[in-house]
């Protein structure tokens, strides 16, 4: 899990997505450089999930460009995503990780060892033989994180990974995020939780109604927000 400098910066250039005449992303221009986590914040429907999916190549842009390391690519190299509600394959926790390793063309001989490493990293080493769907919500999120890390990504997208989790499970996920970030993986994560953004963010990106409202280092964003929307969001007011 080491960042590959050639993949970054990730750049969105006038990126727009329109679906059924609804503008979901509106001319977003954003550069994501290596370093500490970039946190996307904003209310529901602001375009956070769509931005992450577009970065992964799951949703095509209606207009604009996305470049990785200043090169345009159909599919981002060495990246992985964890969805807000990840689907658990109908097999054991360990088999879920092995499946992701196989999908990443990891040789069969290495999969067992890598599976054990990843399950240990997310604190599920004792639950490897349990059916994935029988795990708790927090455990499933951690398993999904292990599956995403099986791709050995240099950039990891996390779409509200702690939504509806209790504080204990949230802390477990945040600890993993810090660990992988410290190992050089660039994390780009969306959240509703201002407190979480303060705890994890190196940079903060505020989206509202598909538009990029503000993008600045976390300390600056929380201390001296430049926009009215950012000020209201930080103050806990409803951004409608």
């Amino acid at each position, binding site marked *: 899990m080491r960042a590959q400098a050639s993949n970054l910066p990730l750049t969105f250039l006038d990126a727009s997505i329109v679906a059924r005449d609804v503008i979901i992303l509106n001319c977003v221009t954003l550069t994501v450089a290596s370093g500490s986590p970039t946190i996307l914040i904003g209310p529901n429907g602001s375009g956070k999930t769509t931005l992450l999916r577009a970065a*992964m190549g*799951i949703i095509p842009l209606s207009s604009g460009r996305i470049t990785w390391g200043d090169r345009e690519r159909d*599919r981002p190299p060495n990246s*992985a*995503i964890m*969805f807000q509600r*990840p*689907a*658990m*394959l*109908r*097999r*054991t926790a360990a*088999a879920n990780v092995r*499946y*992701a390793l196989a*999908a*990443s063309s990891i040789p069969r001989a290495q999969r067992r060892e890598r599976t054990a490493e990843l399950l240990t990293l997310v604190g599920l080493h004792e639950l490897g033989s349990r*059916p*994935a*769907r*029988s795990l708790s919500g927090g455990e499933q999120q951690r398993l999904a994180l292990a*599956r*995403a890390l099986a*791709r050995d990504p240099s950039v990891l997208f996390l779409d509200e990974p702690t939504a509806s989790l209790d504080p204990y499970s949230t802390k477990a996920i945040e600890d993993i995020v810090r660990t992988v970030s410290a190992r050089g993986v660039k994390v780009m994560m969306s959240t509703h939780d201002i407190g979480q953004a303060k705890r994890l963010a190196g940079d903060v990106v505020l989206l509202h109604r598909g538009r990029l409202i503000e993008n600045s280092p976390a300390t600056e964003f929380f201390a001296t927000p430049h926009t009215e929307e950012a000020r209201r969001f930080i103050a806990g007011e409803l951004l409608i």
Partner: protein
Amino acid sequence: MGNPHEFIGIFVFSFRKLTYGREQLSYLNSFNRAATASGKAMTALQLVLTGDPGLFAIVRLSLLVSLGAVLFAALVGVPAGALLALTRFPGRDVLIVILNALMGLPPVVAGLAIFLLLSRSGPLGSWGILFTPQAMVIAQTVLVTPIIAALTRQTIEDLWVEYRDEFAAMGIGPGRRVVTLIWDARFSLVTALLAGFGRAAAEVGSIIIVGGNIDGFTRTMTTAIALETSKGDLQLAVGLGLVLIFIVVVINALAWAMRHAGERYAG
């Protein structure tokens, strides 16, 4: 009272007396009918318990034909259903409606079509398999394939909606997607296979047309039941009926246990 047939007859007779309170003459008629029916059932049970070779030859052929049809239908229906679930093309909705409608294909119509295909003057007459177990397997495969394909299509499509994003995120190719979906839906697909087996095991219309119900060669449980009933000899018919129900229950129980154990292991 020493004869168990009489005992069952009296029991049924007493029940009717309590329930309906008919006149004396009707009681006598009811007693006779009940005693006769229970006697047939007991004789049929004796055929089963003593391992009557004629009965078991019929049971064996029935199982071979029905399980063979389910096997071939699964080989065709599961991939076809999965393909239909995962592809989008013009006319797909029409195809799904037709496939669903074919689940209710009348067996006699299927039997007639296969008969025309396999008859000497038919396009496949040179195969020479009309009135053989092979023809019966083909007829039942035609009946069972739409059931398995339609249920597979629904099962795989539901799972596909759930897995779609993960596949995209992991960069899983089309071939691997199909294999994964079929594997992960395996316990649900058992239900589709059971539905197919249920159709095949209970079916009589098509196999009596293409098989001919030839004693010792193409006689199955259902065709034998139909024949014996029409002859008025109910002993074998009742015995076969009991065996048929028993087999269906056992196979369903085994499938349920397998599914339950599998789900407990793999989720």
